[in-house]
């Protein structure tokens, strides 16, 4: 968050040149990260890109070969309890005890941070209400759906009202309704003052909620910025998709000759035309199709996505 009084950003997480190797595999390759107070910072990357490894190193759960990690301007270490008390963790795997009820699970994990029983009771109730699982308070986890389990997982991580919340792919295998609930919840936590570090391989989620995004691949940050800044980094702009049932190479060659065209492809009955950044070719493409009496169906015009950013930088799809 930009500090209005001093006019500076307050760093919550600062990672410098973090390097982590598993034998010959470099899981984190001089990984750098700065998360400011009040941000929802998204760490976006395909599976295996090193997001979870980075989180585990930041939290001092994993050894790393090189680099430094500071949280709240202090070096992070396994025994840095004054830092840990202000961190909440929501892991990719649901980290709860099957033998405890929903309420007991939240109370147990909250109790690792909050000693006062009355205060803790209030916090637990708030956390349960926050993720809307009050009805299931006395249920055992085995009776809950996947989405409810994820919500419980979040409640366990945030009940002590930490200043920094790290969420590692919290929406994996979650139904759309629960996903929407979780994403809204994260935004509400942020509005309540928490800084969020959010990892995901779903670009739509990251685009929806994150104020800044870092794109990761093969253990490295390959781009950082707001979603607008990231999209501005690539050469392609608007993407036009036109449904065509008859196609020949001449059409592709002719369209490529139009001005400001970056690429023309035909895939699954759709003609895909990408334009240069800031340029619009929709009318020119339609004029060409009409003047050549080429029948076409549906037409879509899409702005570039983070997947396009990833594709242009790495040469592969984010989903690969």
């Amino acid at each position: 968050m930009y500090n209005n009084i001093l006019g500076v950003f307050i760093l919550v997480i600062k990672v410098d040149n973090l390097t982590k190797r598993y034998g010959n595999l470099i899981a984190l390759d001089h990984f750098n990260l700065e998360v400011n107070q009040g941000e929802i910072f998204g760490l976006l990357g395909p599976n295996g890109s090193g997001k979870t490894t980075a989180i585990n190193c930041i939290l001092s759960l994993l050894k790393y070969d090189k680099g430094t990690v500071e949280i709240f301007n202090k070096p992070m270490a396994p025994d840095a309890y004054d830092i840990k008390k202000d961190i909440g963790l929501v892991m990719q795997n649901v980290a709860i005890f099957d033998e405890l009820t929903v309420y007991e699970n939240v109370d147990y994990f909250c109790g690792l941070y909050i000693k006062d029983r009355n205060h803790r009771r209030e916090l637990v109730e708030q956390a349960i209400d926050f993720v809307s699982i009050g009805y299931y308070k006395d249920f055992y986890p085995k009776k809950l759906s996947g989405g409810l389990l994820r919500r419980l997982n979040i409640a366990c991580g945030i009940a002590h009202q930490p200043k920094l919340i790290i969420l590692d792919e919290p929406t994996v295998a979650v139904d759309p309704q629960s996903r929407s609930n979780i994403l809204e919840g994260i935004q509400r936590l942020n509005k309540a003052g928490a800084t969020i570090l959010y990892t995901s391989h779903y670009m739509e989620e990251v685009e929806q909620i994150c104020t800044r995004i870092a794109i990761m691949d093969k253990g490295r940050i390959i781009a950082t910025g707001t979603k607008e800044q990231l999209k501005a980094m690539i050469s392609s702009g608007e993407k036009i998709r036109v449904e065509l049932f008859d196609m020949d190479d001449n059409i592709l060659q002719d369209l490529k000759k139009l001005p400001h065209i970056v690429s023309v492809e035909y895939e699954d009955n759709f003609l895909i035309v990408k334009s240069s950044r800031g340029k619009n070719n929709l009318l020119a493409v339609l004029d060409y199709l009409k003047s050549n009496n080429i029948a076409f169906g549906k037409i879509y015009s899409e702005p570039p996505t983070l997947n396009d950013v990833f594709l242009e930088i790495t040469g592969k799809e984010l989903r690969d």
Partner: protein
Amino acid sequence: MFLHNYIYRLKCIVRDRELMYWTLFFPIILATFFNLAFANLSEAEKFAPINIAVVDNKEYQKNAPFQRVLKSLSTTSDDKDEEGIFNIRYTTKEEGDKLLNDKEIEGYIYCDNGIKLVIKESGLNQTILKNFIDEFKQTSSTVETIMEHNPESMHSGLLDRIGHRTNFLKEVAPSKSSPDTVVNYFYTLIAMACMYGGFWGLKEVTAIQPNLSPQGARINVAPIHRFKVVIVCILAAISVQLFEIILLLAYLTLVLKISFGNQIGYIILTCIVGTITGVTYGAFISSIIKEEGLKIGALIGSSMTMSFLAGMMYDKMKYIISTRAPILGYVNPVNLITDCFYSLYYYDTNSRFFTNIVILCVFIAIFSLCTYLVLRRQRYASL
């Protein structure tokens, strides 16, 4: 914080139905089956009166001394101090033959120019019967000879001396309790149950290790010293396991009537030390083996092997190990726990008991130290 953690760890343990079955109900069920199986074994070792018949003819009626002796050895004897060794039926010779053919009696006695024995098979009961008759005949003959040649000597106590038998062997009890081959099975069972406490140690270490469970990762991110959590978890595991062992002990002593001797304090001490050994053993296994299935397999496999070597499946095994490979007995916690109960039951002195307790304490120290050395790592190479 301690109480909060302790209570929740107790809840996690007690509500784990699967492990509750293996650590509590399985030993109780096994004990019940042992009891059913060994009850018949004990019955077989008891002496049962021998069924015989006596042909009640004129010659028998004339032989008053023989009648008196037979009556004194009969189960219908008036002498309450002596248990009768013969169940006697008085029959005719034909009835005696029939009873013998129908195997309702082991043999029958009839008097016809002397005392005669009729049997159909050979065996222990028939041998006892024959020895009795031979001895009666020999004594009667001796008395008759003395009466014939030197009747005065009968009045100077010779008759008493004839009937008296001097035993030149003195029976010295090797232990304060009567030998019972069955009790060792139950001692190994309770020792095995102690080692099954390893399941709780295993569960607790898994729950708090970030490289073994996501819950462990979450706990390790909390601002609480790892070893405080470890100690609370192990204490909770020991509490539950000790309660289960006491329940098992109560079931064995009160329901199945298995004797553990009367040194209650030392019996409880054995349960406590055995329980701690089991729990720390499980914690040790859990800390050195990462794969879930493998660590459970290692715990069950090693516990069962130790139980086998302590004599749970074969009662002679304990003896074989102690004579041929005694070192195996000293490095086997199940054997040491079993031997604690065994020595409390059999021996007057407690030196053997305390030796076992000290060795078990050494095991506890080794398991705890190894677990500590593994758990003290604060960061992991991989999760």
